[in-house]
């Protein structure tokens, strides 16, 4: 079986997707986040999965997420990420911007 074809994620939206995932699922490690994004988008949005990690590091630096080492259900060491208050504010801002832009694009594209 071939891996499904991917649509690349628009730049800058990856942060938003990560933060949204963390809000919905709570504490998650990298693989869980990637998996969730893939499933939730019905495998349409499938990231080059590694690019998740630079994004996560950026969010760590910005203080939007907190990272903490823990163990998976199969008892393997993994770093778990959690959204911070600052991260929630950042997500709200980005969502607002996103909706405004999406709405504007929709207006332009609607037939008639």
């Amino acid at each position: 079986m071939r891996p499904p074809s991917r649509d690349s994620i628009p730049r800058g939206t990856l942060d938003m997707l990560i933060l949204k995932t963390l809000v919905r699922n709570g504490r998650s490690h990298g693989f869980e986040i990637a998996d969730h994004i893939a499933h939730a988008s019905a495998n349409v949005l499938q990231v080059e999965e590694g690019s998740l990690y630079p994004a996560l590091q950026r969010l760590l630096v910005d203080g939007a997420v907190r990272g903490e080492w823990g163990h998976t259900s199969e008892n393997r060491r993994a770093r778990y990420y959690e959204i911070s208050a600052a991260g929630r504010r950042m997500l709200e801002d980005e969502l607002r911007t996103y909706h405004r832009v999406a709405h504007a694009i929709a207006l332009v594209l609607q037939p008639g």
Partner: protein
Amino acid sequence: MSDELAEEMALHVELRAEAYRRSGLSDEDAAIAAARQFGNRPLLQERSRDAWGFRWADETMADVRYALRQLRRAPLFAAAVIGTLALGAAGLAVVLSATNTLLLAPPAGLSDPARLVDIRSTIGRDRNASVFSYPLYRDLSQATSNVEAVMAFAPFVASVRTDSLGDQQAAGLFVSSNYFQGLGVRPLVGRLFDEAGGRSEAPLPTAVLEWKYWNDRFGRDASVLGRVIDVNGVPVTIIGVAARGFTGTSGIVHPDLFLPLSLQPSVGRLDASRLDDRDAEWLSLVGRLRPNVTTSSAATELTGRAIRGEQERDQASRVAALRLSALRRVPADAAKPIAFFLGIFLVISAIVLCIASTNVANLLLARALARRREFAVRLALGADSLRLVRQLLTESAILFLSGGVAAVVTAAVALRVLARTYITVDFAIPLDFPLDSRVVVTTLLIACVVGSVVGLVPALHAARGDVASLLRSGTRSGAQRRRTRHAFAIVQIAMSVVLLVGAGLLQRAVEEGHRVDPGFRLKDVAVAPMSLSQAGYDDGRAQQFQAAVLRQLRTVPAIADAAFASVLPLALNSRRLGIQIPGHRPPRGARSFLVPTEVVSDNFFDVLAVPLVAGRAFSPTDNDNAPRVAIVTAAFARRFWSSAALADVIGKTFMSGPSTYTIVGVARDARFRSISEPPEALLFFAAGQQPTRDGVLLIHTRANAGNVASTLEGLVRGLDPRVPAMVVRSLESTATVGLLPQIIAGTASAVLGIIGLVLAVVGLYAVIAHGVAERTHEIGVRMALGASAIGVQKMVLSESLRLVTRGLVIGLSVAVLSSRFLSSLLFDISPFDPLTFAVVAGILALMTIVGSWLPARRAVRVDPLVALRAE
């Protein structure tokens, strides 16, 4: 950090692979698919680190680690570079430190020195603008809205007698009662003067010691408090020691002890109190401004006060304006000659650093050449050429920084040695220029800047060439490199020529200075300072005593003649006095002409063999009962009566104080004040009419009169054992003091010139040796074809001679253009002195031989077979 990322990513890929396996892929396929889906792991790791902004730091750390590894592998190279730089930059650090101490930093040991200002006045051009009268100081000393306090001080020569140590000369400083408080100096032991004594400067006979004096003379004994010492014949009680590091505010002389201004009338070796005398200007002033006050607003306020004060005492104002400037070790009016000197040294030491840096550039170039295969391989493997340049720059930055540190350490040692050196004029002036953080940082900064400039050349060389030509070691770039190295050698030689010419000219000036005719007898004249004020004499008895000493001296067979003078000739010293001359208007703002004066006994002109060109010398009849008379120098006559013949000056009169003087003689011009200054307008008074308690005996001895000192000692002791012991010197040795500027400049430039020469010889050697090594093959071929050993030697020597000749021509041209900046120090020596230039050319010829002898010998020993086989 990177380990955590790697672990995280590994887990991710593993989990993804498991998922694929579960969906039915083989183990191998699952692993490949998972890895592909994840992307380029090392790249992603690096980008993750970039999120933290670590990339730059990471790379720099890697560069530093790599550079250190490379340098550890070539310890000899590293040591050569660091040693060369230490030698080259240490001179600069020393000069910077001296400049900083003397001109840029406030004197040591003051609290909040930024608010302290040097106060000077601008009056007519004839007036010494840095000193004030005591009444004027009192006007200025009241606190105002801008000025917190004004402190006054005046240096004096102290003869200190203690029970245990006997007589000793010391540098004294009269200070106002608020001096220590205003400067923010605390006592180390005991107490300092305070204003408890009140503004009256009540005459408390007390003294405060400077730390070093206390350490050297009293062995840091705390029990000195309360001890009574004898200063110029006045008993004073030691009440404290000033905090260590405070060395006064009086220029480069560090005072040994501080006395209250109120003691001036009794302790100062002056005939009368200066405290009430509004004409006696003798106090230097320092002000402490209130916080956030500008110097200009404080100056305006103080000027107004000074003018008001002077108007109350006098009708006309004598002060035009007060000028305030930041307090420095050397007061602003004396800064110019010192800045000139330090400027010369700064240029010289910068040249030495340039020579050293060129050597280092040569070493770096040679090393880059030796490593070109390494660079070529790295470039071929895809290394970024910018990265390569950066790496080489890191290496040279590390080298130069270490060199800078080594230079600072070397300079610190040199300054330590220098601090134990004293220039003795009247006092021992210490050459103490402690390093401070500013100097250290500047030196390191200069080292780094020079390092990156010098390091850039070989780095670019290494990175520019395309890989192929580097691997082939193309001949074209070889020739180019040789040209660069030759240019280095030529520049070095040229710079050392400039240094040597400067040093040579100054040495000649010192020699010439010893030969300059001062216009009076130097040989066979012994001088002995004699201070009677210290022995408790009044003017009348002093006069009698001096006459008696002279009379007895003349009876000694070994002594031809003897005279007395108030001022030691050639000691850069004279007492200035205000005079009024009928028909002559004083300079604007002044009430009188301030002229240098000297009081001399009647046979002064005989002893010094100064002929009178008109009129007569003083005679024993010029005493208190006779009309007041004076003798002037020809320069004095020309200054005031330029149109008159010298004979017509006889009989002219002038006023000083209450008396009118008649000029009875004109003496030929002579360099009484300093050997290096042209004769000045000088006024002589007769000792019989102008009693002076302190002065100097001038004794004209007959040929090889050995023990004038003991004769004099016995004679004076016989007359009065209370008169302090005298130091007898020859007038010739005193003349040396006048040559101090030349001697200091000559010694410093000689030391730096030798360092520069040695570095340049090493540089020349390196270039020639390298050339020989590079041409081993060629030399082998030549010798195989029958070239003689002498022929090969000639070839090597002629290459070196070509370089030296070019360097010499350039260097001499630069020297000719720049040596006239030294002309003020050179007496009558031409800046183009042929002897100096010839000697320098000779030294350079010697340098050629030294620099190319070893390489030439090595060239001759090339075995043609070995040389040819090596290819």
